[in-house]
């Protein structure tokens, strides 16, 4: 990436030093808090971590920041792949959800923060990793990951606390603060402080990171890869699994519609106006799955792990444009006709009338069309009779069916991913003649 490894290290040594110093300061603050809370052991632990960060910072200022061992990098890159990353994140989030009573403890969360900071610091000395992460337009994504972690933790700890109270027959904690306070001065001053802090962050950010400006626009030179702005990179990632217009038009419309429909499709009157998980596990689970896994995670994959030709690259892997890519290239129709039935895929007669041609195409895709049809037509009533019986009874036929269809539409995405990984399947229904591939 950089012509000269040494030059690169010199450039980042200073910022790395400040990074470690801030990490050290945060830990010392935590240690101070623990001391005041009469928890000497914990204070000692954070103090030790803080000192470690101080040593790392000193090494960085000295021009020689500690680096992740090559063996570690290789191991991480060897393990990282679309499958392990997606499934791994899913399992981790699932584990966090199940073990939330443990993970919301401030000490556990803080230890997690320290591990992530250490990982980030050690990785930043890798030129390839740094080249992607420090790209000006990618800085906000790193910030977003930390903010999301912070707020997910904050909301989960409020929810765990409330759930415990609700279990004891008490009201949620917010209820204890139901008495009114005057907007002036309390709210106005809170807003003022918030505004000043936001301005300060924005100014520091603007002074330290210059807005990118590349070569003048040139329609003849296509960068490889071309990436959409980061908030749409998750959608772009879907191009791997479906057609451009489905990804670019149908999916966004479905997401927007689905989001707007949420208040009308959630029949649960509980959990309005306070944090809780126990009183609305289904809504909570579905939303977190869609938001954290399907929206945020795909943005991360698209931004940090996609390289030339939209190939998947490890965090430290050099972006080699000649890397051989695994392709999903077997259509379901080919599986169905050739492999399972042992006959050729029916051909569409070129000279037939357009209606007859369409019939041929349908016949060729009969397996996929039937499967998709069953998925959307048969599964909703089936779910309503089994897993989601209670919801079905609460919501009535129409609303339940709409909810189930939207939910199933969302689930096509992970299902398609799994099919791609396990069967090398490109499309379930492939009708390029009618611009329709699924």
């Amino acid at each position, binding site marked *: 990436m950089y012509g000269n490894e040494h030059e690169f290290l010199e450039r980042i040594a200073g910022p790395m030093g400040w990074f470690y110093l801030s990490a050290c300061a945060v830990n010392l603050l935590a240690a101070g808090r623990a001391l005041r809370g009469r928890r000497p052991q914990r204070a000692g632990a954070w103090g030790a971590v803080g000192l470690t960060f101080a040593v790392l910072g000193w090494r960085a200022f000295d021009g020689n920041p500690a680096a992740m061992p090559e063996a570690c990098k290789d191991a991480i890159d060897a393990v990282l792949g679309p499958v392990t990353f997606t499934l791994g994140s899913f399992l981790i989030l699932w584990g966090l959800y199940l073990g939330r009573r443990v993970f919301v403890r401030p000490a556990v969360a803080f230890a997690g923060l320290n591990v992530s900071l250490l990982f980030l610091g050690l990785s930043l000395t890798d030129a390839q990793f740094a080249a992607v992460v420090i790209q000006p*337009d990618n800085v*906000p994504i790193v*910030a*977003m990951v930390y*903010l*999301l972690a912070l*707020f997910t933790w*904050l909301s989960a700890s*409020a929810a765990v606390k409330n759930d415990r109270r609700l279990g004891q027959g008490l009201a949620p*904690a*917010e*209820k204890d*603060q*139901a*008495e009114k*306070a*005057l*907007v*002036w*001065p309390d*709210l106005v001053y*809170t807003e003022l402080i*918030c505004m000043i802090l*936001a301005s300060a962050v*924005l*100014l520091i*950010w603007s*002074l330290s*990171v210059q*807005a*990118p*400006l*590349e070569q*003048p*626009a040139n329609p003849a030179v*296509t*960068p490889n890869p*071309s990436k*959409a*702005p*980061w*908030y*749409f990179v998750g959608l772009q990632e879907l191009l791997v699994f479906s057609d451009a*217009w489905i990804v*670019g*038009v149908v999916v966004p419309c479905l997401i*927007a519609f689905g989001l*707007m429909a*949420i*208040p009308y499709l*959630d029949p649960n*009157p*509980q*959990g*309005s*106006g*306070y944090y*809780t998980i126990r009183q609305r596990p289904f809504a909570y689970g579905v*939303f977190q799955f869609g*938001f954290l896994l399907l929206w945020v995670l795909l943005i991360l994959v698209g931004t940090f792990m996609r390289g030339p030709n939209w190939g998947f690259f490890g965090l430290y892997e050099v972006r080699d444009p000649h890397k051989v890519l695994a392709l999903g290239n077997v259509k379901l129709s080919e599986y169905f006709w050739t492999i399972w039935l042992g006959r050729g895929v029916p051909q569409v007669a070129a000279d037939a009338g357009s209606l007859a041609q369409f019939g041929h195409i349908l016949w060729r895709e009969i397996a996929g069309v039937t499967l998709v049809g069953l998925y959307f037509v048969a599964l909703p009533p089936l779910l309503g009779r089994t897993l989601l019986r209670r919801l079905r009874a609460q919501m009535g036929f129409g609303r339940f069916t709409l909810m189930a269809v939207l939910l199933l539409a969302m689930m096509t995405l992970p299902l398609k991913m799994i099919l791609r990984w396990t069967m090398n399947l490109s499309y379930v229904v492939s009708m390029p003649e009618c611009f329709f591939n699924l």
Partner: protein
Amino acid sequence: MSLRDRIRDSQVYRSIFRHPAPVDRRNRVLVVVSNLVLHLHPVAIPKHALRPGFTWCMGGITCFLFLVETITGVLLMFYYRPTLEWAYNDMLALRDVVSLGVLREVHRWGAHAMVISVMLHMYRVFLTGSYKPPREFNWVVGVLLLLLTLLLSFTGYLLPWDQLSIWAITVGSNMARAVPLLGHEGPGQQILAAGDTLNRFYVLHCVAIPLLAALLMGLHFWRIRKDGGISGPL
């Protein structure tokens, strides 16, 4: 009388604020009711809503960032011409010549921050179940605001007219263009023709979408009040 009191007692001060200093309960109520900006708020709110731990301040920060973007955006418009000939050169000039050199940075990073804060705001509203009756419609208004925020950011991304911007937008517009019948072969072709795109995006970015967003924000805030203020346990 101290200087502060003298100012507060002066005819000028009273003519502007229409009530004495907000130091007692009566005047603290009056300041909120009679001030154009503050009267967006109710006079009093439940204490839990004051805690940053409840709202994360994200709605307010989004609104604040929208204002920052409006101000810096207007300033940028003084320097920027949306034509193939000038767009890129004006960017260079903004970087190298114009004083107050962080204008573009504040606008760009503010835009990124606004996308993040609006997503976090939605996340908060979901997690506190604040979309439940009677606030369903305000959630819908919110989703529209989310879409407008993304579109604002997207249309703005093109304006520097450098390699980064046109190819990022091309990725997006190619998807829209691939729509059968309406895209390549139909009206999409004309709407997204290269030379015109810059101007169209400019107008969308500087006029159409911000106006719409401001209107919807007005509706959003009004509905918060009409729906009974910030949500909380019953």
